[in-house]
């Protein structure tokens, strides 16, 4: 009992620490990446290559005046960023990061290194918690008592609900192929075997449609360009967080980056084999764990970079275009994918 609690606590600490560090790194990556794409230098003064820039930013935000505007709804105004960060953090607990299946620490099996390995509803939990993220934005938008932020909140609530459908449908395709709601089962199914000896049996191959839908929907769910209509600087100044400053503003920023990490981790886990890597059958125990973590990290890094890349490459959608894409583009595609998976499974084309 105590050993379990201790192991869980360590897991939580390690994962939360990693994620928060990643947030800081991503901030740097984003700014340097933007500069790279736009052919300029970006922050390069603090530390080697400007690597310490996030630390400086954090210090600056911490020491700025924590301003609360006069006519806001104070309780909700405070609650909104908290909800955003909590939800973003909570979603990590079911994602398997590495192969600890034959390792026990103090009699506690490590499994997939998830925080909550026994949660039978797995992905469903993730979707459920993820669907709460919208409250942070909507409440921030409403409680700020500012028409720009209200518009941002309104937009994001409609946007998130719309894209959640396609996202869930895309996930369903994977779950249908897996036959389980658990993410470690999803990963296990994709590992170890190959088509034609070279193509790993990742879900992305048979379900390329679902993968595309999922990636696009996840961009919308994280409010990233080209779907960042909730902030839309050029139209709404800064959208839902226009009235926020200091650490409360930082909370929204952090939650956005954490959501990016979650989203990337999910893409990797659902469609790109999670922590599996070719040739992993030759390893076991701690080396396997280390290699699997590395594999996961590389895949994760790619998709994190994709987020940055897309952000600085594509212009923002107009709102009606966004809705049209969601309902008339992604939703039918996701349904098609689901039907295809069902038929393929019934026919035995996918095992």
């Amino acid at each position: 009992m105590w050993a379990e609690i201790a192991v869980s606590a360590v897991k939580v600490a390690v994962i939360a620490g990693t994620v928060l560090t990643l947030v800081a790194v991503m901030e740097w990556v984003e700014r340097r990446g933007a500069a790279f794409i736009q052919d300029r230098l970006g922050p390069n003064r603090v530390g080697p290559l400007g690597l310490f820039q996030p630390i400086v930013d954090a210090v600056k935000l911490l020491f700025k005046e924590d301003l609360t505007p006069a006519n806001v709804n104070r309780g909700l105004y405070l609650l909104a960023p908290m909800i955003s960060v909590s939800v973003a953090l909570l979603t990590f607990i079911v994602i398997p990061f590495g192969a600890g299946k034959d390792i026990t620490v103090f009699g506690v099996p490590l499994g997939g290194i998830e925080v909550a390995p026994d949660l039978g509803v797995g992905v469903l939990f993730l979707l459920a918690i993820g669907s709460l993220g919208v409250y942070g934005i909507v409440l921030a938008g409403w409680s700020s008592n500012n028409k720009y932020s209200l518009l941002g909140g309104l937009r994001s609530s409609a946007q998130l609900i719309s894209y959640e459908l396609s996202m869930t449908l895309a996930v369903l395709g994977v779950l249908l192929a897996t036959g389980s709601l658990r993410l470690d089962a999803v990963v296990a199914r994709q590992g170890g075997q190959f088509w034609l000896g070279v193509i790993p049996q990742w879900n992305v191959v048979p379900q390329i449609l679902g993968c595309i839908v999922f990636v696009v929907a996840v961009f919308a769910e994280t409010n990233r360009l080209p779907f960042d209509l909730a902030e839309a600087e050029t139209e709404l100044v800064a959208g839902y967080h226009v009235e926020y400053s200091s650490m409360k503003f930082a909370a929204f920023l952090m939650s956005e980056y954490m959501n990016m990490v979650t989203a990337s981790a999910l893409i990797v886990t659902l469609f790109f084999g999670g922590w599996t890597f070719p040739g992993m059958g030759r390893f076991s125990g701690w080396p396997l764990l280390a290699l699997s973590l590395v594999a996961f990290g590389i895949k994760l890094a790619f998709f994190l970079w994709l987020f940055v890349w897309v952000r600085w490459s594509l212009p923002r959608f107009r709102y009606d275009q966004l809705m049209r894409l969601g309902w008339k583009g992604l939703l039918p595609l996701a349904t098609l994918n689901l039907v295809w998976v069902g038929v393929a499974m019934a026919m035995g084309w996918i095992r």
Partner: protein
Amino acid sequence: MMGTAVFYLVAVVGVVSALVAVSHKNPVVNVLSLVVTLFCIAVSYALLGAEFLAAAQILVYAGAILVLFLFVVMLLGAPEEPPVGERRPFQRVAGLALAGIAAAGSIAVLAGIRVAAPAGAAQGTAEALGRLLVGPYLFAFEFISVLLLAAMVGALMLVKRKH
């Protein structure tokens, strides 16, 4: 042991937030309090072994239905009730009295009942529920899809602006 403590905690929180949800003047607060109550109910589901329902409860109610409420509240500019002009004081009194009678009566009746320990065992996993849904309840399940479609079309027709 821990489950018991959790239940009484969520019960108290759930009832209190439900009271806030129906009594507070601000509609946004109403909705948010109801989210809390529904969360408490989800936890109760989990305690009752219905883990799929618990997740679905959050996903459907907190994640979709109440967001829709919030959306409408904001769309309508969070209209508060007019402070004056209650033309039916009788309604308020009778309503409260009836609800009170219902609550008190059911507590009084239920508290006096002694039931055997629950049979338990049946775990509400997604698989078990799914087998029921596409097995004996297939017709209802299909029918629900028709209902949802009808509701969707109906809602669209209601709010569609005539050009």
